[in-house]
Every structure is written in C-alpha cells, then in structure tokens.
C-alpha cells in the first residue's frame, strides 16, 4: 500500500488516519480539498493544529459510520449503486477485517495469560491514572478559559512601586485616566472585599461585600440574573463640598449573590426592591447575580471569589494617592497585550508628569497582566512540576510494560516462527503485537480513569488554600479524550520495541536454526529499558527528596511565637456607634478584660491584622541621625496592638517594656521594635529611648518621631515562608480602627472559649458579629499546606516510580537467570559455589542500576531547577539529596535482584543442565 500522501510533513499522522479511513476512490480529492481549506483557514500554531485534528476525527468518524451503514444489508437497498468504489472497497474491507482479526487474536492471547495481562494493565494504569488526575487539574485551573466573555482579552492592572512586589491596586483617579486615555475598549474596577453584616429577622450574619464600578459586569460580559446592573449615575461620585443634600437624594442600592438570595430569601422571585439591613445602613436590592458567578482575581487582591453583596463604586477624579482599587481592562479587538502594555506604560508616565506631587520619587510603573495568567501565577510552577512528574511516571510505566511484553515474546517464539514460515510479513507481525499492546493500554486507561477519579478526591481534599478555581476541577470529556490519547501513546511506546524485535529477521533466522540467540538480543534491549527506568525514577525521587527537605525546614521554621493554644478572631465594632477613638479603645479594653477573666483563658490582646494571614502593612522609617535627610528607603512592617499582645502570642520581650494603658489614653508617640530592626539601626547601642521617624497615615502627625520603649523577638507575621522585614509595633491608639483581631491564648482547646467570647461581645454591644475565628496553628498548617500538597503528590509519584522500577529490575533479572539456566548448571557442575552464582546474578542488577544513575543524576540536575520556587531552605542541587537518593535506589536494585539471584543459586545442577 502506497502512502505517498504522508510525505507532506504537517499532516503526517492525521493524514495517515484519513488515508486509512476515507473511501479509496475519494480520499485523494478529499485530502487535497482539506489542504486547500487548511490554507484558507490560515496560519500555523496550535489553532491550525487543532483545526486539522478536528477535521481528521470528524471525517474519519463520519465516513466509518457511513460506510458501515452502506455495508449492513438492511440498509443496502438505499445504496444500490456502489459504482466505481466497489473493487477497491473489497481490498479495504479485507484489510480492516485483518485488524479485527488481530484484535480478536490479541484478546485470546491476553486471556490465555491473565496474570501477565493483569500486571501489564496495572503497570500502565499506574502511569495513566496519575496523568489523568493531574491533567484534570491542569485543565480545570490552567486551560479552561475563565467564565467571562472573550476572557483572553481581559487584563488586570498591577502597580510596581520601585521594585516592591506588583501591587494589584490603582488610585481612583488613575482608573479614570486609563479609561479616558487608553485604547482599551473598557476599564472597570472593584474594591477589595469588605466584611460587613446583615440582619434578617433578628439574625445577624457576617458577609463579604465589594464595590464595583457600574461598567465592570458588562465589561466581563456578565449580567444580573434578576433585576438590573448599576447605572452610570449610580456609580458617579457624590458632589463633594455640600454633600449634605446630595447624599440624601441617592438611595443606597446593592446587587446580591445567588447564594445569598437562595439562603436568605429562599430564592424569592419578588426580591427586587426589598431592603437589606446592614445595621447602620440599609440597601435596596436591585439585582441578583447568576448562580456560580465569581470575580476571580489573582493573589494579593484580597477579594474573595465568594462576594455576597455588590455595591456601586464611585470614582473620585481627585483621589490619586491610595492604591486600593483593583482594575480590569478589556483589550480592544485585534490589539495585543503587548501593544496595550506599551500604551499603559506611556499613559502612566504622563500621569506622573502631570501630577508630580502625588508620585514624587515613587518610581511607579503600571503593568497589565493577563487576567487568567495573573490568577494562576502562584500555582503554575507546582502544577507544571507535577505534570512533569506524572509524565515521567508514564514513561516509566511504558518502559516497564515494554519490558514485560518483550519477555512475553520469548514464550511466543515458536508461534511467531510458524507464522513467518506460513508467510506472515514483518508488518503483519508488528501489527499483531501492536494490537495486543493497544488492547492492554485501552484496558489500562479504563482502570486509570477509575484511579484518577479516586485520586482526584484525595487531591482535592489536600488542596492548598491558594489553589484558584478548585471547584472547576472535574473529569470531563476533554480529560477523557486526553486519557485516550495518552493510552494510545502509551500503547505505541510500550509496543513498538517488542513489535520491532519480535519481527526482526535476525530473530526469525535464529529460530529456524532452533537456537536461542534471540534471548540475549532481547536481554540487551530489556537491560537498556531498565537503565532508562532507573534514570527516570532517580529524577522523580530526587524531586520528591528536595520537597521533603523543604517541608522539614519549613516545619522547623522558628516562628518567633508559639501558635499552640491561640485562637484569633476579628472583632469589628459598629462604626456609627463607636465613632470616637476613645469609645473604641474603651470597648476593646473592656472586652479584653472580660475575655481575660473567662475560665481557661491565659492571656488575650488585639492586633490590627491576623498574624500569618498573608496581609501586611508597611511603612518607611528613618532614625536619629537620618531624620534630617530624606526617607532613606528603609521599610518595616507595622501593626497596632493592645497591651499584652506579646504575652498572648508568646513573643519574648527582650528589653524595655510592653505597652500600657497610659500609652493609649491619649496619643503618646511610643513604639516597640523587633530585634532585627534594633540590630540593624543600633548594632552597638541600647535602642530603648531612641527615636524613629515614621511615615504612615494614622493619628500620628507626619513628622512626629516615636520613642522606642521596648524590643521584642522577631516573629513571622505575614506568612511562614517570608523572612525579615523589620517590625514596628505601635499602641492601638495611634491607629484606632473599628476592626481588631483578638488573640486569645487558653489552656487546652483553643476554640473552647469562643462561644463565651461571642456572648461577652454581644453583652458589650459591639454591634457586629465576631468572624474569621481560627486557631493559630491552622494558619501554620495552611502555610505548610501548599508545600505539603506538592510534596504528598510528588511523594506518591516517586513511590509509584520506585515500585515500578523495582518490578522492572526484578523481572529482568528473573529473565536473565532463566536464560542462563543452562550455563548455571555447567558452572555448578564444574564446582562453582552457590554464593558465586548468587553474586554473579546480583552483579547484573547492580550494574544496571549503576549505569542508570549518572543518566538520572544528569536529568535531575537539568530538571530540578523548575522546582526552585517550591523549595524552602534547600537548594535545587542539594548535595545531601543528590548523594542520598542514588544510594537508596542502589539498595532497592540490589534487593530486587537478590530474590531471583538466590533462586538461581539453589537450582539443581542436573535440572539446569537438561534445560535447552
């Protein structure tokens, strides 16, 4: 059969499939037509590739069905004239039925050796299952487009302030400027999440709200399911100055989420116009968002995907200094992100020039990040590493299956020789072996899908908190297609070498002579396969080893505080009722006293942000001697705390004193710094009594310096991984917000006093529910969670790899031992001891592993660099791991060879000599 058409490169495999499935008399023209259509469709790259394959599958499927119905007799009368296609059809039919015959034969072959088939299927399933599972994650998180209209056009603005991390916020005036000046087809914005509470029928419930510009939902291509979106007027800023009357006229409105609608209003269709009681304010509901709508923004945006209430966000054209608005732009049709980026940067520069007072020395730069890419930026390295790992596992599984198939050919030598003698060509033999491996791979993929479905549950249970779109992860048609494609590749990979070897004329020749040279040929091939397996496994094991080391160093991090026994909770106050700093201080200290008096509570205090909550407040500082000069670029994390905070967290006070009530009764400019800052600024002096200059928008006046009254241990307050910015603690009174995080240390169960604390807060009349109650050690666990997630998966994959290669080494040595039985008999007869025989066979396994190691080490050196961002406290070429893991693998190889080697030593020389 000629296949001249396949010479044209870009089609190759798909062309071959078409060539095989299209009717003989039409295929040439159809292929030509497809070529022409492909040219008109245009281009290269993945889109064109996809197009080709869609056409290929569509054509082959339709024509197979069409011709099947032509052939079946009860439809024959509708297709009377087969005309020109009749004769070639015959030949085609014969060929197709040839494949069927081979499949039938393969089924019988595999049924005859159920044990062997089961092992191969299981081996391949262990390779296919994890691939399916991880691909499901890749598909759900990375590949599937975001659920918005033409999501590839959406981009998130980020701001770079002279080298600090890219912050996802713009000032309100900047949003207006970008909307006006850029060619982006629209620019919309959303605030960070706001915790508030609603009261329905006397029940108070904490919810998350966010402000959006009226154009944001249309920009995303989403509209309320019931009711309407905000109008432009509703999103316009109030006229400042005499805002008194102006404000009265506007009724506050809001759009609620589907979840809130269902849960609080039972899906009431008459929802529009009802009021939502927010305590200090009530809103009129004008719309309900559709089920499942989420605004998915990337890390650092502090916007939960589960917002229950949307309210209009007015943009103030004079508001240019507080970077807090998350801004989304849509590229104009046909514009690339790069063009838009260049434009945004230019507009940014103009802004800086026009408003120098706002941007002085800020080094600000504006960036557009693709919305989807931005969302997944933190998880992409982990997911890709795992994808690489499952790919390796699949390779190992295929190698193993190839090795097993090769071994099975041994018992088939006679049969194959007979077939050849009866005139079966090389192609025929290859086809037969391939159909066996295809059948095995198909069965394995079914098993693999079950494994994946089961594995996915475990995987999602382990999911790190930072995995976006986790609810979008599911086994769907795309995944199943991927798995089938994977099985096909696996069948090819596992079958091609055995098929080639089995049909090799050399083997056939030697068979005719009735000798066994073929055995050693296949032995060599199998040895090479084992070497490859060892190398692949080593790469995986080293990867897992590095992650284990990271996990250990992460869990050993000195947090600087003792998380055990501590619970944290946010305690907001009704801002309308507690509208003076004094009243808030008063209420918080009262609450602190009452909580402190509860049974079991050892210590309690408050802080402005949850420790390890991945949030920070940062300020620049200066110190004596540098006070006259500019800010010298020093920055520190700062927090406002109630007296007793350090005690409640178990942070050691190293010098000076804690804050006291008197620091809070009026504005007293004092501070406590951590030991890092103290050592940095006054390495040889006592920091107590020294002064710091701070720039922060609090009760503190701009240049008023603060006096240092104490020094504490450095503690991790943003997350477990991130190390040292120096820290400055200030008395609550300097930043008297109506929202404070309480830290409560108690004996025994940290959550035990929570109910009593809620009661106390209610008795005090804080007017808002306590929320975000979490044990401190769960923050630590969550911080370890991301690493644990990757680690556990990588560990499982490495274990599978180790098991597979152990089985591989074992079966090859068994095979070699069997092959050498005759030789062993002679050696034993000539006086070799059992020990010598065992050692000889052991050496085989050892050598195979030894050859595989350097290849694997090289591979690991090349690949572990990709793990870099996942590692902690260990380099990607950690010598300990790179030395230790190969030793482990060698030991395993020896063990795997020992069992068959020992068996060889015990063989009866007479039996062995008789073996031919």
């Amino acid at each position, binding site marked *: 059969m000629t296949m001249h058409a396949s010479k044209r490169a870009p089609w190759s495999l798909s062309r071959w499939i078409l060539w095989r499935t299209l*009717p003989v008399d*039409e295929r*040439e*023209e*159809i292929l*030509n*037509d*497809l070529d*022409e*259509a492909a040219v*008109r469709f245009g281009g290269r790259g993945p889109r064109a590739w996809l197009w080709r394959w869609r*056409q290929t599958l*569509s*054509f082959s*499927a*339709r*024509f197979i069905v*069409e011709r099947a119905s*032509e052939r079946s007799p009860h439809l024959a*009368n*509708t*297709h*009377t*004239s*087969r*005309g020109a296609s009749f004769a070639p059809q015959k030949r085609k039919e014969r060929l197709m039925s040839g494949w069927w015959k081979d499949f039938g034969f393969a089924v019988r072959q595999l049924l005859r050796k159920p044990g062997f088939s089961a092992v191969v299927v299981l081996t391949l399933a262990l390779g296919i299952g994890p691939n399916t599972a991880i691909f499901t994650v890749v598909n759900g998180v990375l590949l599937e487009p975001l659920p918005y209209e033409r999501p590839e056009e959406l981009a998130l603005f980020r701001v770079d302030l002279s080298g600090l991390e890219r912050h996802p916020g713009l000032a309100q005036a900047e949003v207006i400027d970008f909307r006006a000046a850029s060619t982006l087809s629209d620019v919309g914005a959303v605030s960070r999440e706001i915790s508030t509470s609603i009261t329905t029928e006397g029940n108070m419930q904490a919810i998350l709200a966010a402000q959006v510009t009226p154009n944001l939902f249309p920009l995303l291509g989403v509209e309320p399911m019931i009711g309407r979106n905000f109008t432009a007027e509703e999103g316009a800023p109030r006229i400042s100055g005499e805002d008194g009357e102006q404000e009265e006229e506007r009724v506050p409105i809001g759009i609620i989420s589907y979840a809130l609608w269902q849960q609080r209003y039972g899906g009431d269709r008459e929802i529009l116009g009802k009021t939502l009681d927010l305590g200090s304010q009530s809103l009129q509901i004008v719309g309900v968002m559709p089920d499942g709508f989420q605004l998915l923004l990337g890390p650092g945006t502090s916007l939960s995907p589960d917002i229950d209430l949307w309210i209009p966000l007015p943009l103030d054209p004079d508001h240019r200094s507080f970077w807090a608005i998350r801004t989304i732009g849509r590229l104009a049709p046909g514009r690339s992100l790069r063009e838009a980026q260049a434009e945004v940067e230019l507009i940014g520069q103009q802004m800086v020039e026009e408003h120098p007072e706002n941007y002085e020395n800020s080094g600000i730069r504006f960036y557009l990040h693709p919305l989807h890419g931005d969302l997944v930026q933190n998880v992409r390295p982990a997911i890709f590493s795992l994808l690489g790992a499952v790919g390796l596992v699949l390779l190992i599984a295929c190698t193993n299956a190839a090795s097993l198939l090769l071994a099975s050919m041994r018992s088939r030598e006679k049969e194959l020789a007979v077939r050849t003698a009866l005139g079966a060509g090389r192609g025929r033999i290859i086809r037969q072996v391939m159909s066996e491996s295809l059948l095995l791979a198909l069965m394995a993929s079914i098993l693999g899908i079950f494994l994946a479905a089961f594995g996915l549950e475990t995987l999602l249970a382990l999911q790190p908190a930072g995995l976006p779109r986790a609810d979008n992860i599911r086994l769907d048609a795309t995944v199943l297609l991927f798995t089938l494609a994977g099985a096909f590749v696996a069948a090819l990979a596992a079958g091609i070498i055995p098929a080639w070897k089995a049909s090799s004329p050399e083997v056939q020749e030697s068979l005719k002579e009735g000798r066994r040279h073929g055995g050693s040929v296949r032995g060599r091939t199998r040895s090479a396969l084992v070497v490859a397996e060892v190398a692949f496994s080593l790469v995986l094991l080293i990867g897992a080893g590095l992650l284990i080391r990271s996990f250990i160093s992460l869990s050993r991090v000195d947090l600087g505080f003792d998380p055990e026994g501590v619970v944290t909770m946010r305690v907001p106050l009704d801002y309308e009722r507690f509208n003076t700093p004094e009243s808030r201080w008063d209420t918080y200290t009262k609450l602190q006293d009452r909580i402190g008096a509860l049974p079991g509570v050892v210590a309690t205090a408050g802080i402005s942000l949850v420790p390890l909550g991945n949030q920070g407040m940062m300020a620049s500082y200066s110190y004596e001697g540098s006070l006259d000069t500019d800010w010298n670029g020093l920055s520190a994390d700062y927090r406002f705390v109630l007296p007793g905070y350090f005690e409640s967290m178990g942070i050691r006070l190293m010098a000076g004193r804690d804050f006291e009530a008197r620091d809070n009764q009026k504005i007293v400019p004092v501070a406590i710094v951590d030991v890092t800052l103290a050592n940095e600024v006054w390495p040889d002096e006592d920091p107590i009594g020294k002064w710091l200059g701070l720039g922060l928008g609090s009760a503190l006046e701009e240049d008023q310096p603060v006096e240092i009254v104490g020094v504490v241990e450095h503690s991790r307050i943003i997350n477990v991984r991130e190390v040292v910015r120096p820290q400055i603690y200030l008395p609550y009174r300097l930043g008297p917000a109506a929202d404070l995080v309480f830290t409560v240390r108690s004996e025994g169960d940290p959550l035990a006093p929570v109910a009593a604390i809620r009661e106390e807060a209610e008795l005090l009349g804080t007017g808002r529910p306590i929320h975000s109650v979490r044990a401190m050690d769960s923050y630590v666990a969550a911080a370890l969670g991301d690493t644990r997630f990757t680690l556990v998966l990588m560990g499982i994959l490495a274990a599978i790899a180790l098991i597979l290669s152990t089985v591989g080494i074992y079966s090859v040595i068994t095979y070699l031992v069997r092959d050498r039985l005759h030789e062993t008999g002679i050696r034993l007869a000539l006086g070799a001891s059992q020990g010598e025989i065992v050692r000889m066979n052991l050496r085989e396994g050892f050598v195979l592993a030894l050859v595989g190691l350097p290849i694997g080490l090289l591979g690991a050196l090349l690949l572990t660099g990709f793990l870099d961002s996942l590692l902690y406290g260990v380099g990607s070429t950690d010598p300990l791991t790179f030395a230790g893991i190969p030793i482990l693998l060698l030991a395993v190889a020896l063990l795997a060879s020992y069992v068959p080697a020992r068996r060889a030593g015990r063989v009866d020389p007479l039996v062995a000599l008789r073996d031919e």
Partner: protein
Amino acid sequence: MSREALGEVEELVLLAILRLDGEAYGVPIVEEIEKRTDRQIARAAVYVALRRLRQKGLVSASMAAPEPVPGGRAKRYFRVEPAGIERLAESRSALLSMWDGLQPLLDKRS
C-alpha cells in the same frame, strides 16, 4: 422502491452546487453553504452528503485536469443531474405546501 427524502445537508449541498454553476468542488461548496446560511457546517458532513448524492445518482462528478501551476492539483467537480433537480423541486413544493397559510404566524413574531 419508495424514495428516501432528501436530508437537510443533502439539500443544502445540492443547492450550493447549483449556485456555484460549474465551479463546484468541495471547498467552495462548504464556503457557499456557510456564507449563505451564516452558520458553521461540519465539513465532513458535506463530503458524506456528496458521496450519498453521487450514489443515489442525483449528482455526477468529473475530474478536471490539474491546474498548470506548481502544486496544482486535480479537482473533482460536481454537477446536479436532472434527477437531482427533480428531487429539489419536490422538496421545495412539499415545504411550500406545508407552509401554506402559516404566514401570519411568522408576521406575528417579527
């Protein structure tokens, strides 16, 4: 032998061939249908329909000589046979008689 009704795609293909008037081979047929109906059609469905029409004797095909340019190739051009035209006419009058008197329904909607 009772005659099988024309399938929707078959009908579209027949009409497209007539419209293309002598220039009808696979690629332009698909394009014509997509352009006129303003929707995507599965390319393979068109080719299957062409095959069926040919087997039913409603269209005939002829190979044209390769174009005299580099890479020029032979194309199979299709022509509608009288039987095909007859079937199209039948189909049209059947549809029209089914529509008879239903015009107000359409007017109301638009």
